C-alpha cells in the first residue's frame, strides 16, 4: 500500500470522516448516515440535512463516495439512492485514521493521553 501515497487524498473534516465511517459499513442512504453519526456520538455531532448533503456532495466530487443502486434485499425505492465508498474513499479513511493513530501514539508516549 506504499504506492498509494502518491495520490494523497484530500484533507477530511470531522464531519467528512464521520460520514465516511458511516458509509464504511456498506451502501446506505442519507437518513441512515445521519442516524449512525448521531447515535455513535451520543448526539454531540448531529448535522442538519443541509450540512450533511453539502459534505456528501463534496465527498462525491472528490471521488471518495459514489451513488449505487439499493443493495439486494432492501426495499427498492426509486427516490432513495444509496451512497458507497469508492476505492479512493477507502484509502482516504484509512490514511486519516492512520494519521490519527500516530497522533494518539505520540500523545501516549508523552504521557498526555491514556493512563497506566
Amino acid at each position, binding site marked *: 500500500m506504499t504506492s498509494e501515497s502518491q495520490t494523497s487524498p484530500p484533507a477530511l473534516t470531522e464531519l467528512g470522516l464521520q460520514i465516511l465511517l458511516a458509509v464504511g459499513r456498506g451502501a446506505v*442512504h*442519507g*437518513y441512515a448516515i*445521519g*442516524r449512525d453519526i448521531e447515535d455513535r456520538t*451520543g*448526539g*454531540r455531532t448531529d*448535522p*442538519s*440535512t*443541509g*450540512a*450533511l*448533503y*453539502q459534505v*456528501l*456532495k463534496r465527498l462525491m466530487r472528490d471521488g471518495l463516495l459514489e451513488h449505487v443502486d439499493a443493495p439486494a434485499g432492501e426495499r427498492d425505492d426509486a*427516490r*432513495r*439512492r444509496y451512497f458507497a465508498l469508492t476505492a479512493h474513499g477507502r484509502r482516504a479513511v484509512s490514511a486519516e485514521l492512520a494519521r490519527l493513530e500516530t497522533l494518539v501514539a505520540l500523545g501516549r508516549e508523552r504521557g498526555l493521553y491514556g493512563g497506566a
Partner: protein
Amino acid sequence: MLERAFGLLLRLLPAAFREEFGALMRRTFAMRAADAARRGRLSLVRFAAREFAGLLRAAIVERITERAERRARHSPAHHEVRGVMDAMMKELRHALRGLARTPGFTAAAVLTLALAIGANTAIFTLLNRVVLSPLPFPHSDRLVVLDHAAPGLNMAGGMGMSGGLFREYVKLPAIEAISLVGGTEGTLIAGDSPERLQAMAAMPSLTDVLGIAPARGRWFAAEEGLPGGPSVVVLSHALWTRSFGADPAVLGTTVRINGMPHELIGVMPADFSFPGVRADYFIPFPHDPETTRAAGFGRGSIARIAPGMTTDALAAQLNTIIADMPNRFPGDAMARAMVESVQLAALPIPLEQQVVGPVARMLWVLVGSVAVVLLIACANLANLFLVRAEARQREVAVRRALGAGSRRVGGFFLAETLLVALLGGVLGLVLAHAGLQLLVAYSPVELPRLNEVRIDAVSVAWTVPLAAIAGCAFGLLPVLRSRVDVFNVLQDGGRGSTAGAGRMRARNVLMAAQLAFAMMLLVAAGLLLQSFLSLRTADPGFAGESRLIFQLALPATEYPDEAAAAFQERALDALRGLPGVRAAALSTTLPLQGDGRRDVLQLRAWPLVDGEVNAVAQFRRVSANYFETMRIALVQGRVFDERDMQGAGNPVVIDEALARAYFPDVDPIGQQLQPVGATDEWHTVIGIVAGSPVNEVRESPAPHLYFPIRSEAAGRTLSVHLANFVLVTGDDPLAVLPGVRRAIAALDATVPLIRPERMSDLIARTGARTTFTMVLVGIAAAMSLLLGIIGAYAVISYGVALRRDEIGVRLALGARPADVSGMIVRQSAAVITCGIIFGTVAALAGARTLESLLFDIAWNDAITYAIVAAGLLAVGLLASWVPASRAARVSPLESLR
C-alpha cells in the same frame, strides 16, 4: 407542512445541487422530522429551527462557491450574472440616493423597523436559548425528574422520591441510570476563612445520568455513595478558581465542611451547572441500597430513561411497582398506606419541561407581543411607502412613458424598501444586542440558562428572513400600486378630483388592522398591570415593611440540639437590645421562603388504621413572639407564651388552612394531633392564626403547623441548627445590619450571617415574573399604541389631502366648516370602530394564554376591555379631529383655483 416548507427552502440551493440531491434531501428530512415528532412537540420545533438554519447556511455557502467556481471557469453565464448584478447595483445606488434625499422619511422608516426587529430578535434569542435549546447534556430529551402525586393527600405533585421507591426503581431496565439529588448548604473552610456555600448532594450515578464527567480528578465511587462511606467532595469550577486559585495540586487534599474533613477528589467542567440548583461544591447523597423503609419522601431525583421509552410508558411501569410496594416492603406499614390512603402515583416529568415550563408561557406571550409590534410597524411602513410612491406618480409615469417595464419600476420600489429593511435589520441587531445585555444584567426574574443568552448565528438566521419578509410586506403594496395609469397621471398632473376608492380602501384596512393589533397589546398590558397592582396591594398575611431578615446556621458538631436552641434564644435577646431594633423573632422557615419542611401528621380524633395518613402540613418551629413580630393575625385562641416556649404541655398553633382542611366540623381549639413518626405524645391546639404563603403571594394558602422552639417533637422533624430571623426596624432595615453583625459575632465569631435582606425585597422577588412580563408587554403596548396612532393620523391626513378639492367644493356650496370636520371624524370613527371590534375579538382569543400570569383578575375582564376600547376610540378620534379641523379651514378659493 414542515416538509413543504423544507421543499420550498430547497429552492434557495443552486439549481445543480438541487437537481442532484433535492429529492434525497426531502426524503431524509421527512424521516428525521418523523423521528423528532416522536420525541415531542418541543423537539420538533427545535429540529425545524435547526434544519432551516442549516439549509439557509448551506444555500449561502453553496451559492458563493458555485459563483466562485463559475467565475474561475470564465463561463459565458458569468457575463449574464454580471449584467444582472450591475443592474441591481444601479437600482440600489439610485435607491440610496433617493433615501438620502429624504432623511426624515428614511430615519423614521429605519428606526420604526429597527425597534420592531430589535425587539423580535431579542425576545427570540431569549426564547431560543431558554426554551428551545436543549439542556447542555447529550440526549437531554431522555432526562426525567421522578416526582409523585398523592391524590389521597390532595397533592397533584411535589411528593418527590423516597429511598424505598429508589431501591426498587433502580432495578428497572426502562431506567438506564438514576440518581437522588438535593440542594444543601454548608460552611467550607479552606485555609482559615469559613465560607457559607451552596452545595448539591448527588449519587455516584449522576455522571451516568447526565452523560458528563469532571474536568479534573474523578466523580464519586460506588462506596462513597453508601451511608458512612468515605467523605469526599467535588468542587465546581467557579469555586476551584475563586477559592483555590485553580491549583490542580489541591486534588487529594482535605477541606473541612461543617467541621468534618472531606477529601477533595475532583473539579467539574466550567460550563457545568445542574438545572435549578446553584452549587459551589458536590457531596455524595447517601443511600442505603438495603433500606427497609418504603417512605421518606421529599427527595429530588433525576433519571435517564432508555431510548424509545416515553414518560407515559415509564409511569405505567412505575405504578406497577408502587402497587406492589406492600409485598416488597413487608415490614413497613407505610408501604400499604402509600397504596391505599395516599394513593401514590408516579409522575415522571421531562427535565426540560421542569426547567423551562414555568417561564415558557411568559416568553411565548412576549414573542406574541413583539410579533404584533412588528406587524404594526410593517403596516405603518407600508403606509409611509404608499404615500411616497404616490407622491412620485409623475416620476413613475415618466419612466413608464420612456419605456421602463413594470418589472423595472417595481424593482425600483423594491430596492428602496429592501434597503430600508436591511438598514433596519442591522440596526435592529445592534438594539437587540444592547437590549439583551440590559436584560441579562438587570433581569429581576430567574430565567434558566440566562447567563448563556447572547446574540448568535441562530438569532441572525432569525433576523435576516424577518427583515426580508418585513421588507417585502411593506414594499409590495407600493409595487402593486406602481401600475398607474400613465396617461391619466401625466394629463391631469396627479390631481385627480376623486381620491381613488381603491387607494383609500387599502389605507383604511391598514389603519383598522393597526388599531386592532394595538388593542390586543393594550388589553394584555392592562390585565397585567392590574395583576401587578393587586399583587402589590394584596395582603400577604404578614407585614413586610421595615423588616430585616437573615439566616443563622450553627455547626452541629459544636452545637448539640439543646445548645442550638439556647444560642438562638441568646441571639434573640442580644438583637432585641440593639438600637433601632424594635422586635426580634425567628422561625425555621419564613413565609415566601418555600417549603421548609412538609410532613405528615395524624389527628387524635381520627385514629389511624394501620399506617394510614390523614394530613400533611408545613412544619415550623417559631419563637414566642413570632406571630406579633410578623403581624400574623390571631384568629382564635392564643399564641405561645414564655411558659409554652419551654415545651411544657406540648402546645401547637395551627393556621386557618389547616383548621379548614382537617377540623371542618369541630372547634379545633383543644384538639390533639402529632407529627407521625417523631413522637408518641399528643400535642394540643391552643390557637389558630391567619395563613401564610409558602412560595408566592398569589397562591392559595397551605396548612401550617407551628411548634415552640424547644418542642421535642419539632426537634426531631425540623432542623434545630438553621433559623431565619426577622427584626422589626426603622424605615431602612439595612441600617441596623452592622450592629446585628457585631452582636452575632460577639456570641460566636465563626457563625456567618447568611443572606441578610429586606423582607420587602423577598416579597417583590416572588412577584417578579408578573412584573417582568408586565414591563415588557407594557413597552410593546406603548410602542404599538404610538405606531398605531401615528398610522391612523397619517392615513386620515392623507385622506383629507386627497379630498381637498371635494372639500373646497362642499364649502363653496355652503357647507359649514363644522359639517366638513364632522363628516371626516364620522368616517374615521367607522374605521376605528372596525379596528376596535376586530381587536376585541383578537384580544379575547389571545388573552387566555395570559391566564397563569394574572392575579385577581379574569382574562376576559369586561371592564379592562371596555376601558381600553373607549381609550383607543378617544385617542383615535383625536387623531382624526386634528386633520379634520384643518380640512375645515381649507379656503374654497385656493383649492378650486
